[in-house]
Every structure is written in C-alpha cells, then in structure tokens.
C-alpha cells in the first residue's frame, strides 16, 4: 500500500524555483531517503508533504489524504521533525514530551512502548531544560516528541545534521527499529553515507530528482569505472587529472580524489603513467566501487552539462 504519493510537485519562492516537478511514492513501512545538498529543495518538499506549504502545482497524498483538502486528517497521523530544533528550549525534557503528548490528545504512558527505546536514553536528563541538551540528545528528544502520538508516517528533515558520528549511528539504528513497526519514514540527509541505510533513495538536485532507486541500484546503475587517486600535492593533482583526456570527471573526495574514466578498459597503471609524464609521481591509484556520493556528483555533473 502506498503511504505517500507525490506527483509533479512544483514550488516557487519569488524568483527561486525550489521544486521543478518532483514525483515519487513510498509504500507503507518503507524508509525513503531524500539525498541532496542544502538548498536542493528537500525542506520545501517536506513542508508540502506535512501540509505546511501548498505546492504551486502537482498533488500529494499522505495515507490516501490530500494535503490540500484533508490537511486536518493528515496532521492527526503524521510525525514531523523539522530540520531546525523545534522544541521549547525553556521547557525540560519531560515537559516537552508531555506537552506534545497533550497536543496530540494522547498521554506519554499510552505510547511509551514506542518511544521507550529512544526516550530511555535521555530519561536520565529529563529534568534538564531542552536548550541545555547536546545536539544528539536534542534530536533524540525531538524524535520522541514526533513519535509520541504513534504516527503512521514520520517525516524527518535532516535529523542528523550537526550531530556527532556516534549519535548519528545510534539515531539511524532507532529509525531502523521504527521501520520494523510499520511506520513509513521519509528522511532527508546531506550525508551520503547515511543514504545507503534507506530502503530507497531519491537524489535531489536543484529541485529535481535525478534518480530514485535502492542505494545498491543507484550505485550499480552507474556505468562508469571509478578510481581513487591519492598523492602529496592534492590540488595541483586535481587540476592535472581534469586535463587528462582519459578522465571524464575528477572531484575531491575527503583526503583523495575520485575520477571517472571515459573508457572501461583504462587501467590504474595507465593513469599512473600519464600522470607521471606530466610530472606527478608517487601517486596511489586504485579502482573502487562507486558509492552514493560518486553517483550524486556524476549525475549532477551530467545534468548540468545537459
């Protein structure tokens, strides 16, 4: 059963076209990821799906309800965690949770089993004011608050931005357990490494979906050979790589460069040799499997070239 159906949604703010006709659907109990950098339209799409904004055109249904007509029904059944921390900073952890429970006409006790897993981690600090919590704990509290009314669909807008790696990992672990309880989760993230934890992802760039598939599907659909290049003087190397005729694309990737090659038959030795000819020695070149970030870079580059 489809939990969410988004069809040809566009949204414009003045002269900025935030969404240029995006469509996707997510079925019940699926974890669907929106992957893209800041300003790519993720938050706008979230606000449209959570009935906070109206799309300029296109249609969205959540659990079969139209965001335009039945917004009241949708607001009863979704949990939303905005990208910005949106709880009451001056209320304690416990008070925030109680407040949101009341807001959704339920009690903490009633749905405690659902949030127990998450809430138990911040429970030792329940008397603390929300503003004094660490980034990771804030997000856990926000998630608890978004879950307190047992929503059927959970919208998480960049839940792990600004959260340390350990907490991020924990957080995704929690999402996995929520998914097992049949809650549809729509999550956005700028971190590509989190993308592979979703069932399916949409790569979003400048208001359009470049690709929607499973993480594995996306990486395998990329018909390119990819290599990593590592050397002493990284920036000149990147410039040199971009000039090589055999290299299609080169971009920085952490402490190394990733390159895609025009021809599948090119070997790592060939790259080392060509770079050696123009004075770059001591390079470490390796063939690698494409990851989501590679796909994102390649797809957005292809898109901008078209």
């Amino acid at each position, binding site marked *: 059963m489809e939990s969410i159906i988004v069809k040809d949604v566009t949204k414009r703010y003045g002269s900025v076209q935030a969404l240029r006709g995006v469509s996707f659907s997510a079925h019940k109990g699926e974890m669907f990821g929106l992957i893209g950098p800041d300003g790519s339209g993720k938050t706008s799409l979230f606000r449209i799906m959570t009935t906070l904004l109206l799309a300029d055109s296109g249609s969205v249904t959540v659990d079969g309800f139209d965001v335009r007509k039945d917004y*009241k029904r949708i607001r009863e059944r979704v949990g939303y965690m905005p990208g910005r921390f*949106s709880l009451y900073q001056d209320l304690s952890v416990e008070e925030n949770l109680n407040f949101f429970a009341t807001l959704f006409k339920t009690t903490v006790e009633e749905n405690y089993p659902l949030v127990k897993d998450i809430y138990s981690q911040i429970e030792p600090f329940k008397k603390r004011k929300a503003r004094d919590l660490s980034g990771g704990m804030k997000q856990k509290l926000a998630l608890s608050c978004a879950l307190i009314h047992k929503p059927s669909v959970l919208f998480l807008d960049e839940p792990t931005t600004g959260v340390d790696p350990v907490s991020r990992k924990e957080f995704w672990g929690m999402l996995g357990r929520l998914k097992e309880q049949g809650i549809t989760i729509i999550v956005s993230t700028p971190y590509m490494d989190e993308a592979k934890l979703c069932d399916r992802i949409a790569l979003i760039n400048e208001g359009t979906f470049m690709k929607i598939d499973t993480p594995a599907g996306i990486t395998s659909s990329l018909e390119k050979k990819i290599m990593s290049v590592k050397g002493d003087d990284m920036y000149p190397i990147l410039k040199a790589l971009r000039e090589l005729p055999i290299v299609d694309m080169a971009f920085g990737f952490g402490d190394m460069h990733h390159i895609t090659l025009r021809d599948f038959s090119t070997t790592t030795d060939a790259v080392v040799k060509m770079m050696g000819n123009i004075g770059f020695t001591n390079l470490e070149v390796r063939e690698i499997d494409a990851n989501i970030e590679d796909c994102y870079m390649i797809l957005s580059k292809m898109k901008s070239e078209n």
Partner: protein
Amino acid sequence: MHIFRDPRTILILLLMPAIQIILFGFALSNEVKNIDIAIYDQSHDVASRMVIRKIGESPYFNLVASIDNMNDANKLLQSGKAKVVVIFESNLYNKILHEGRGDVQVITDGTDPNTSNAVTRYVQVIIAEAQQGLTNNYMPVNAELSMLYNPQMKSSYSFVPGVMGMILMLICAMMTSISIVREKEVGTMEVLLVSPMKPIYIILSKAVPYFTLSLVNLTTVLLLSVFLLDVPISGSLFWLIIVSVIFILVALSIGLLISTLVDTQVAAMLISGLVFMMPVMLLSGMIFPVENMPFILRAIAQFIPAKWYILAVKKLMIQGLPVKYVLTEVSVLVGMAVVFTTISLKKFRIRLA
C-alpha cells in the same frame, strides 16, 4: 503556563505598571507646588487684601515679596526669585462694585509654559473664590471646566487613565504578538501546525495568559491609584472593569493581528512599539489634549483604541458618570475588537506561507 518560564519577563510585566503609575503620579506630574510669588498691590483695599490672604494660605504659593513698582517685578522674575508676579490695579474693589469688573494682571515666567499655565489657573481660581466671597453673587469669571472633577488640578487624575490605557496596550498587544511570533521564529510553530490542534486554540492559548496578566495589572494600577495617588473611583467599579476588559480584548486582537503580519520578534516589537505605542501615547489625549491637534491628527486619533478607552475611564472613574455616558466609547471599542479579531483570524494562516 509557558510565560512563567521566563521569570524576568514576568517580573517586568508585573512591576512595570506599578513603576509607571508611581513615576507618572509623582515624578512627571504637572502639578506645581510652592511657587514663589510676588505681589504688587496698587489698590490696598478689601478686594486685593482678600486675594492676597488667600494666596498666602494656599499650599501652592510661597509669598516671597511685596513690591511697589514694576522694576522690582521684572528683577524678581529675571533673577528667578519669583516665578509669578500678581499686580492689582488701583481701586480694585470700587471697580468691581461699580463697573462690574476689575483687572488683575498675572505675570509669569514663560520659559516654563507648563508651570505658568498651571500658575495662571491657580491664581484665577483663587481670585474667583475671593470674588464670590466679596460680592456674594456670581461674577463672570473665567472658570476652568476641568476643575469640576479635579479641583486641586492633580495631574494623577489625568495620568491614571492614560497609564492604564498604555500599559494594557503594551502588555496585550506587544507581548501577545511577540509570543506568537516567537513560536514562528524558533520553529515551534511548524510543529504546532502539524498537529491536530486547531489554529484557533493555538492563538487562544497564547492570548489567555496575557489576558490574565492584564487583569492582574489592571488591579495593581487601580489599587495604586486609589491608595497611593488618592485618585478616587467615583463611578461604578463594575463598569470600569467591564470597559477595561473590552479594551484588553481590543489590544489582544491588535497583538494577534500584528503576529499574523510579521515573522520576527524584532518586527513585532517595532510594529507594536512604533505603529501602536507612540500614537497611543501622543494621540490618545494622555499627554496632549486631542482637541488642540490639527484636523488630520484628530482624525487619526479617532482610530486609536486607547483614546476611546481613556475617555471612557475618565468619565467612569474620575467624573463618576453613569454608564450610559460612555456608550459611544464602549461601542467603538467593541466594534474595534470585533474588526481586529475577525481580520486576524482570517489572516492567521493554517499553513506556513
């Protein structure tokens, strides 16, 4: 319940009316006491002596000199030894008896117009009293109407209604708009909207605390003015409170309106401060009488809720008139409340934009 989280704000909100009342009541008063006065009596008859005696008895004047020429009068005024010189023309009593009029010249130090105004009025009152005592019949005197309800010219009489109007406006309009806009700014509005809670309840829950707070403040102001400033509540307390509650509702609805129009706390503060507070202070008749303003300002003043409220409070509280005299004011206020509430409810967005 949420506003109590910020004890500092709450303290300010509760103390402010008290401080303002005391400030306006004492420090900023228009009242003039212990004015140094000099007398130049050319007449030396029953009439002038009677007036001089009354001036001497008055707590407002401090008789510093009796002089016998105009030069001394000028010197005293220039040196500041006397703020006012009263000159009686010769044969005053005779003139009053036979010609039906007598001239008394009052020269005041015009560098301080407020003081000289007040002084002139005091002297006029005293002369009028003396006149009555002398002739036993009413002479055409230049009596001030305002003296009727405020014989001592106490400035707190006119400031109390003004301060009430201002404080209620400030707390309701400004604080309500700020508290709603804060939700928008912090992002909690987003979460609140994506909840089954009806927007009207969100608004109500924001308005109710400030409504309560305003009632507390109203009580404080009234208690202070009665017991500290000796401003009596001459009319019906019940109707005074009813009118105040209506005014609070108007202010609340203005606050709501502001909150639907702006997105940041600073903007809310500026709008309620500049667009609503300043005109309220200046045009409501609290500081400057509306009647003296040019037509365009008078026209604008008609749209200022506080003006009507202050009028009504003056009538009810100071003059002690029955409620039927304030029906116009009350109905204007009710109308404003209805209009503002309707607009803000219409404008309140069920979505973010």
